[in-house]
Structures are given as C-alpha cells and as structure tokens.
C-alpha cells in the first residue's frame, strides 16, 4: 500500500468525521436519542438513490457527492419526522417507531435501487457503497465534503454547548430557566442528521449509528465530567474513523463500516473491562478486596473474641494462642478456609502461626480491636434503637461494620473510650 495523497486526505477526512460523530453522539446518548441515528441512516437510502436518479436524468455525473448528500439529508429528515409522527399516536413507542421507519425506508431504498439497476445508464454506479461504506473508493473531494459537513456539525455543537448541556442533564430545570428544550432538541436532531449524512459514504448507512453510540458509550465508562466526556468521545470517534479508512485502504473489499464498528467495539470493550471506576475488572477486584477485608475482619474479631471467651476481660484480650478450629467454628467456616486466611494474615504479619493455632501480633491485635469495636458499635446502635434483637444486630453488624470509620464507631458507642462487652454470648454460631 502506498500512502498516496488521496489516501491521506480520505484518512484525515474520516478522522474528522469520527471527531464530529463522537461529539454529537455524546449529546445524543445523554439525551437518550442515540438510536435516532439508526433511523436517519437507513432512511437516507431512498434519498440517495432518488437523488442519483434525478441527477442522472438531468445529464450530470451521478457520482457527485453534494446532490447525493442533499438527497440523503432530505430523506433522513423525513425519517425523523415520521418517527415523531408515529410516536405521537402514543400507541407506538419511539423504539418501535424507529424500527418501523428504518426498515420501511430502507426497503423503499432497496426497491428503488433494484429499479435503478435495470436502467441502461450508469445512475446506479457505486450506490451500494453507501450501504456498508467504502472509504477506499472515496475521492479526495468526497473526503473534503464529508469533512466540511462534519466540521459544521462540530462547530454548531460547540456554539450550542451550554444549551445542549442543559437539555441533556436536566431538561425540566432547563425549561424552568426558560430555555426552550424543544428547540434544543430540534437542533440536536439536526446535528444527528448532519453527521449521519456526512458519514454515509465512509461508514455506510447500516452501521453509521455505531459511530455515534460506541465512542460516546466508551467515554461514558471513563469519566463523569461532560467536557472530558466530549473530548474522549471525540477522540475515540476520530480513532474509529481513521482506523476504518486505513482498513479500507488495505483491503478495499472490506466493508469500511464494519471496520469502524469493530474498532469502536474494541475501544468500548477495553473501557468496559479496564475503566478504573466502572470497569468490570476493577469492579471484580474491588469486590474481591472487600470480601477479603471482610473475611480478615471476621477472622481477627473471632480470634479476639475467642480469647475474651476464654477468660480475658473485654477489651484486654491478651497473649493467648487460639486454635484455628475454634475460629472456624465461631464463624461457621470450613477449616480449610480458616487455614488459608490464617496463612494470608501471617503473611501480612497480623498473626503468628504455630501448629494449629494463631496468635495476634501487635498490629493484628490493633486491627482486631478496631474490628471488634466497629462490630459492637453497630450492634449497640441497633439495639439501642430497638431496631433488631441481639441475633439480628449481630448479623446486621457483620454486614455493615466493614465500612465503619473509628469516628463513626465513636459516635455510636455509649462510652467512646472503652470497648464494651459483647451483647451476646461468644463462641460457635448455630
């Protein structure tokens, strides 16, 4: 592959297109309008075919992009209006209306296309490329057009930033402020139509919706702040667009739309798995950590309470060895689990291990005391409120004590300095 001028221009054009689509898509996603792009894209087909037919009949070159895009825009707007008209019946909700419009308009496009293909002249040349996209077949001027339209959308987005933000985050509040959300919504729909139409040739009308949804959904996984979300979404969009064009340059048979979508899906999957806040991996790690911390608290508390039960006064559990079996019995754990925990705690220097017994180290004793204190603080609080009986308070405290800071524990306890005695008998659970 040689990186000719044409290829470079198309690459840059597709990147800009992705940039605009990512930005508009972020607003569309936040406003719950992302799938409108699906209706617009599919609805554009009959517009493109009719435009080519008319242009060819008039004797012009039917491959000229502007008339085709104009046809696509008109049909796309008609599609949006049809969705709204159907949704106004209230019998058919918006999602069904979108499905109806996209499939019926697309069907009309397919029928028209089959008609055009029977005509002798070359009106149909390259029209099917609009369905799945073929960036490699784009000429430099096509890329200029697409990029120009996309930049227009981007500019409008920035100009309307405040309005769009208000409409997306709190439409009711915006209305109270006197902002006309209906007008803002209309502007957003216009923006969606614009980027969708701009992307038809490169990405194709079947999959163009993904260029709006996937970057925005990816960004949403990574940040909560709108400016950053827009920036990320635009960047991911640009990467998708450029990657799609590159893939198409390498293998012109490959539907560009599919390449764009798969790159976007890869970004989304990575974010879904590895986002620091909301990623599945981070979530699983956090959950495993919490579970471990919980088991650790329970183990240390059981060791402490076993010593209390064996005669050390409350709050002064001292220098004794506790059989691991006793801890397992107190928690209702299998011995294997208690053993694994004991070894883990020994590794962290919280207990010492000998034979089948554990002994709290000074650090372990301090941690155990904190856990015992938190547990009894919650128990005490619930009992004082009469919100639970002793057994219930014990169970509840097991669940919530782990997030409790020492400060809160102090506020819950009657005598903040002392460690109170357990309200219930210590030892094995039923």
């Amino acid at each position, binding site marked *: 592959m040689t990186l000719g001028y044409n290829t470079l221009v198309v690459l840059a054009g597709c990147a800009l297109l992705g940039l605009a689509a990512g930005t508009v898509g972020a607003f569309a996603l936040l406003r719950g309008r992302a799938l409108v792009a699906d209706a617009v894209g599919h609805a554009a087909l009959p517009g493109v075919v009719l435009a080519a037919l008319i242009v060819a009949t008039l004797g012009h070159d039917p491959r000229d992009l502007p008339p085709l895009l104009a046809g696509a825009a008109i049909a796309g707007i008609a599609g949006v209006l049809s969705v709204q008209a159907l949704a106004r019946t*209230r019998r058919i909700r918006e999602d069904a209306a979108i499905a109806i419009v996209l499939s019926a308009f697309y069907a009309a496009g397919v029928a028209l296309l089959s008609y055009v293909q029977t005509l002798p002249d070359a009106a149909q040349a390259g029209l099917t490329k609009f369905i799945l996209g073929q960036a490699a077949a784009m000429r430099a001027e096509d890329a200029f057009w697409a990029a120009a339209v996309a930049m227009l959308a981007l500019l409008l987005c920035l100009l309307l930033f405040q309005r769009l933000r208000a409409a997306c985050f709190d439409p009711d509040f915006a209305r109270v402020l006197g902002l006309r959300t209906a007008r803002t919504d209309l502007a957003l729909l216009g923006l969606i139509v614009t980027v969708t139409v701009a992307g038809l040739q490169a990405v194709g009308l079947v999959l163009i919706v993904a260029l709006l949804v996937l970057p925005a959904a990816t960004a949403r996984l990574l940040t909560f702040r709108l400016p950053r979300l827009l920036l990320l979404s635009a960047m991911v969009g640009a990467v998708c667009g450029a990657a799609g064009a590159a893939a198409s340059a390498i293998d012109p048979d490959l539907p560009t739309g599919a390449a764009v979508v798969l790159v976007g899906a890869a970004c989304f999957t990575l974010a879904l798995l590895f986002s620091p806040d909301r990623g599945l991996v981070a979530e699983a790690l*956090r959950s495993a950590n*919490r579970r471990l911390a919980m088991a650790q608290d329970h183990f240390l508390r059981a060791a402490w309470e076993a010593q209390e039960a064996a005669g050390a006064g409350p709050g002064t559990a001292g220098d004794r060895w506790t059989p691991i079996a006793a801890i397992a019995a107190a928690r209702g754990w299998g011995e294997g689990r208690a053993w694994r925990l004991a070894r883990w705690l020994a590794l962290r220097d919280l207990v010492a291990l000998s034979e089948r017994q554990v002994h709290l180290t000074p650090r372990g004793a301090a941690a155990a005391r904190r856990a015992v204190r938190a547990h009894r603080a919650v128990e005490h609080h619930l009992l004082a409120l009469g*919100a639970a009986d002793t057994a219930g308070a014990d*169970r509840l405290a097991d669940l*919530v004590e782990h997030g409790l800071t020492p400060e809160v524990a102090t506020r819950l306890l009657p005598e903040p300095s002392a460690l109170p005695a357990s309200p219930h008998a210590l030892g094995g659970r039923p």
Partner: protein
Amino acid sequence: MTTAPPLEIRSLTVAYGDHPVLWDVTWVAPEGLTAIVGPNGAGKSTLIKAALGLIPALSGSAAFFGRPLDEVRNRVGYLPQRASVDWDFPATALDVVCMARYPRMAWWGRVPRAEREAARAALAEVGLEEFAERQIGRLSGGQQQRVFLARALAQDSDLYLMDEPFAAVDAATEQAIVAVLRRLTEAGRSVVAVHHDLSTVPDYFSNVLLLNGRAVAAGTVQQAFTPETIAAAYGGRLNLLEGASVAAGARA
C-alpha cells in the same frame, strides 16, 4: 388449615446494588387486615416483592402459612402497583381478571366457562360487572385499580399482598376497596397492604407494620401505631448508618 401465620418474614435483608433497602427485617403478619407504612424509600414494596421472590434477597426467608411459597402459591394473591403495567394493552377487564385463574387452566384453548364465571364474580365483587367487556385503557384510574383488585380476588387466596391498593384513586373507589377488604377479612382471609396515608390507618386496618429499612414497630394499631413509633419510623434519627454499603461478598 394450619395455625401457622399467613406470612412470616425472617431476617430479610435486601439491597439494590450496594445499597441496603431492607435491614434484617423479621416480622410475623397476623391474620386480618394489616398495613405496611413508612416513608418513601422505606422498602415497603420491596418487602412484598422480596417475600414473593420477585426480587432477590441477600439473606433471610419468607414463609407463607409455615411453608415456602412454591408449596402454597395458590393460597397467596398479589396486587401489583397500578403503574407497573401498560393500560393501553389490548385486553378487556374480564381478560385481565381471568389472568388470575391461569394457573388453574391449560396453557392453551378457550377459557373454561367455570373460570370465566369466577372472574365475572370477582368483577361483580368490586362493582364492575357491566364493564367486563370494556378495554382496560377506557377505564378510569379508579376502575383500573378495581380491576386489579378483582384480579387479586379471583386468585381466591387466603392471603393477599397488595402494593398500594389506594394509590391515586378517588374517594368513592377508596371506600369501595375498603369494603372489599373488610368482606375478605370477615370471610377469614388476610390482607397485607402497602399504605401511604397515615391518617386512614386506624380506620381501615387492624394491624400495622411501621417500616423504615428496619421493622420499627409492629402489632395491633392500638399498640404499635403511636406517635412515638411513627416518629421513629419517619424521623431522621435512624440515619447514622445510612450510606453504609453492604460488602459485595455478603451476597449469600
């Protein structure tokens, strides 16, 4: 009949995500008419749905007449919130009431005459017999609520769990529903209803459960429905633990 209570909830803890809604609720519903009251977000509907197994519980259990729900399903009726369904659905009032009898019919074929008559009788019970063939979207809000009540009645159960039977109905409908509930208890059935209006609790119900995440108070209305318990259920002093999150590993 056994002497086991209609509903016995043991140590029920339910969380949405990490956020606990019900905390270790233990409660025995007595026979008769019982109201579950509490502030918004107290977990009233959650309690009913979790007892019926419609949402998963972190821990705890519910027994109906001393047995697990699956063994006594035909003795337990349910009235969901009216807003939970699409009232534009193509169905007549009679169709909706017939749904209650589906477990007694084959899954296909015509609705047997006896079942249809039972459904009609339930509609008559709530005063809607002449609306039997009307599409449910053409009924008023109060009538829709009564259709749901009729559907619950048609289950012919010994215990009815009702989620906000009085929500957004006019005064006449409210009185009609109360009359039906009274007739039910006179016939030896029990009703547990989520209720919003504190002022009508003593008039309509004989027992009460005050709920605010926890079971704050329970018993007869005379014993348990006092200014102190109401303040405890609606007051803010229970909130020290609010915001605490259940460790994800706690899921049993």
